[in-house]
C-alpha cells in the first residue's frame, strides 16, 4: 500500500487509496473522513505534490489530532496500595495482560498481587495462578462461581496487610451489552472503592483485530466503569487496531499500552507516532 501511494503523483486515486488504507486499518468511516478532510486542507495550504509527502503528512495529522492532553502514564505510587482493574469482552486477553503488567511492575521493583476475580470462565483462575507461580507472586482466588467482588476485596485487604504495591484485578470477560454482567462489574468496582483511594486504573483490554464494535465496547465500559486507559492487545498480528483513534477522539480515553507478542514482557507503552506511521503504511 505504501509504495502504491508513495510512488504516484497526486490524483483522485491517491485519495481513494488513502481512504482505503485507513478503512482497512479499522479506523472507521467517520474518523477516516475527518482525518482526510484535515489532510486535504493542510495539503492544499502546503501545496503537497506527491504521495510520499502526503502519506507523511497524514501521519502528522493523526498525531496532531490525538496527542493533545492524553496522559498515557499508568498510576502507580510506591509506598501505598494501588489497584488496577482489567476489564473487557471475552477473549480480549485480560489474563495474559495481567501477567504482562505484573512482569513490568516487578521489573520496576514493585511488589504485585493478583486477584482472580474471573470466577466464571472455567479454569480462568488456574490460568492466572499459572502466571503467578511463573512470576513468583501470590494470587487471591475464590471457588468457581464465587463472588468476584469478594475476591477483589480480599485481595485489597491482603495487599494492605502485606504492604504490596500493586493489585491486578483480573475480571471475567463480558460483552458490554449484558446488563447483568455490567452491573456485576460495577459492583466489583464499588467493593474495591470501599477502601478509599486505592483504585488507580481501570484498564479496558481491547483486541487489535476488533472492528468498529470496539468503539461501542469502549463507550459502554467507560460509561459503566470510568475507564482510565486502553490496553491494545495482539498488535503483533497484521491487524492495525485503528478503532482506537475513534476511541481516543470521541471518548477521550487514552491508549496506554500495547501487547506485541506472546511472552510476558511483550507489553510496551503506546507510541502514537509509531502507531500512526504503521497505520499509514
Amino acid at each position, binding site marked *: 500500500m505504501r509504495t502504491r501511494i508513495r510512488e504516484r503523483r497526486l490524483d483522485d486515486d491517491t485519495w481513494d487509496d488513502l481512504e*482505503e488504507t485507513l*478503512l*482497512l*486499518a*479499522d479506523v*472507521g*468511516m*467517520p474518523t477516516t473522513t475527518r482525518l482526510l478532510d484535515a489532510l486535504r486542507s493542510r495539503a492544499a495550504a502546503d501545496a503537497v505534490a506527491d504521495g510520499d509527502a502526503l502519506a507523511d503528512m497524514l501521519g502528522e495529522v493523526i498525531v496532531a489530532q490525538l496527542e493533545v492532553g492524553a496522559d498515557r502514564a499508568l498510576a502507580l505510587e510506591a509506598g501505598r496500595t494501588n489497584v488496577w482493574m482489567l476489564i473487557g*469482552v*471475552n*477473549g*480480549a*486477553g485480560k489474563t495474559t495482560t495481567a501477567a504482562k503488567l505484573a512482569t513490568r511492575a516487578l521489573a520496576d521493583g514493585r511488589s504485585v498481587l493478583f486477584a482472580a476475580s474471573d470466577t*466464571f*470462565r*472455567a*479454569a*480462568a483462575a*488456574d*490460568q492466572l*495462578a*499459572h*502466571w503467578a507461580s511463573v512470576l513468583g507472586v501470590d494470587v487471591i482466588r475464590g471457588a*468457581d462461581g464465587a463472588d468476584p467482588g469478594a475476591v477483589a476485596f480480599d485481595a485489597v485487604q491482603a495487599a494492605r496487610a502485606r504492604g504490596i504495591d500493586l493489585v491486578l484485578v483480573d475480571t471475567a470477560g463480558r*460483552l*458490554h*451489552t*449484558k*446488563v*447483568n*454482567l455490567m452491573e456485576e462489574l460495577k459492583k466489583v468496582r464499588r467493593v474495591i472503592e470501599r477502601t478509599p483511594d486505592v483504585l488507580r486504573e481501570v484498564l479496558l483490554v481491547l*483486541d487489535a*483485530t*476488533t*472492528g*468498529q*464494535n*470496539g*468503539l*461501542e*465496547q469502549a463507550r459502554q465500559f467507560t460509561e459503566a466503569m470510568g475507564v482510565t486507559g486502553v490496553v491494545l492487545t*495482539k498488535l*503483533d*498480528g*497484521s*491487524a492495525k487496531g485503528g*478503532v482506537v483513534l475513534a476511541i481516543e477522539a470521541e471518548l477521550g480515553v487514552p491508549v496506554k499500552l500495547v501487547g506485541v507478542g*506472546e511472552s510476558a514482557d511483550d507489553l510496551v507503552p503506546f507510541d502514537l507516532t509509531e502507531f500512526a506511521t504503521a497505520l499509514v503504511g
Partner: protein
Amino acid sequence: MFDTLADRFDGIFKRLRSRGKLTPTDVDEVAREIRLALLEADVNVKVVKSFVARIKERATGAEVAESLSPAQQVIKIVHEEMVATLGGATGKLHVAPKPPAVIVLAGLQGSGKTTAAAKLARVLEHDQGKRVLLVAADLQRPAAVEQLRVLGEKIGVPVFSEPTDPVAVARAGVREAERLGRTTVIIDTAGRLQIDDDLMGELGDIHDAVQPHDTLLVVDAMTGQEAVAVAERFAETVPLTGIVLTKLDGDARGGAALSVKEVTGLPILFAGVGEKVEDFEQFHPDRMASRILGMGDVMTLIEKAEAVFDQDEALKIQERMAKGQFTLEDFLDQMRQMKKMGPLSGIVGMLPGMPKELRQAEIDDAELGRVEAIICAMTPEERRDPTVINGSRRLRIAQGSGTSTQQVNAMLKQFKMVQQMMRSMTKAAKGKKGKRGRARMEVPPGFPLT
C-alpha cells in the same frame, strides 16, 4: 453514534418507498449508503466494493417486476445478493464413512475455540445422538486443558489430553476415541496468529496427522477488516470446511461473517450466541441477511415463539384483547410466555422494524421479575380491575412484592399504556384478514423498559 446496518437500510428504503420511480441518481445514492453501512458493519473494504458493484449493476439494469414497486425491487435485489453472499443454503458437518468423525477447531487467540468446542460437543451429543470425545490440544495457553476439562464435565463429555505436543495429542486423541468407541472427536487447538509461520505449520501438521473430516475456523463476530486476511491465510494452510461465528450475542454488526464467507466461500455452520454452553445455534444465512437488512430475524423469532406459546392460551388472550378485556392477569401470562423465549434483550434484536432507540434501550430482564412480583402481590380482584387500587392497597402490594409504591405506580401506568396500545392494535387488525396473528407478533405486550 454509529447506525446499524439495519437502520441505514431502513432509512434509505423509507426514502425510496416514498418515491414513485427509481432514477439512476437513486441507485447511486443507495449504493453509497450501502457502502457506508457495510463499512460501519466491519465488512471488508474489498468485499464491500464487489458487493456494491453487484447491487449497482443489478439495480440499474433491472426490469422492475410488475408486482413490485421500484423500491421493493431494490430491497429484493439487496436481500438476494446478501443471502447469496452469506451462503444461500444452510451448511452441514461432513459424515465420516467410518467413525470417528474428526473435527478440528482453529482460529486466532481469544476467538472462542475452547468454548465453541464444548458447545459443539454438547449439540452433537445431546441433539444428534453422537458420542463425542473432546481433545485438548491447546498446550500453549496456561490452563486451557483444564478449561476444557471443566466444560466437558459440565456437559458430560469425556476430555482427552496429555502433556506431549499438540500433534501427538491430536493423534492420540483420535486413537483414544477409537478405543472408547466414540463416534466424533473434536480437537481444540491453540490460538495462533495467521502470520506466525511456526504455529501455522504446526496446524498443518495436526491436520496431516489426523486427516479431519471437518476443519472449522472460529471467527469472533466483532472482528474488523482483519477477518479477510485471517480467513485467507488459514484456508491456505489447511483445507477448511466451515466457519463458526462466535460472540454474536453482542451488538457487533457481524460484517466479518460477510467478509469471511465471500473470500473463502465456506459455509458458516454455527453461531455462538451466549455465555452458557447451550447458547449455540445452527447458522442461517437467510436469516442473517434478513437481520442485517432490518427485516429482523423473523424466522427464528417465529420458531421460538411457536415452540413456547400455548396456542389455545394465545387465542383466548387475543379474544379478550379484541373485546378490550385485557387484564393484569393476561399481562402476567403473556410475560411468562415471553420469558420462555429467552432473555428479552435477545428477542428485541430479532424483531423487524424495531426502532433504534428500543433496540439500544437497556432491556433489563430483572425488571421483568419485578413486574411479575408486583402482579403476584395483587389480589385477583386488583388484577382484573386495577382501578380499585388505593393508597393502602398500593402499600400492601409494594411490601408484598419487595418493591416501592413508586415502582407499583410506574408498573400500573405502563400496563395502562399497553392496554391502550392493544386496543388500537386490535382495532387496526380488524378488517384485515389474517393479520391478527401478525399483529400479536409485531408488538409484544409490555416491554418493561428502564
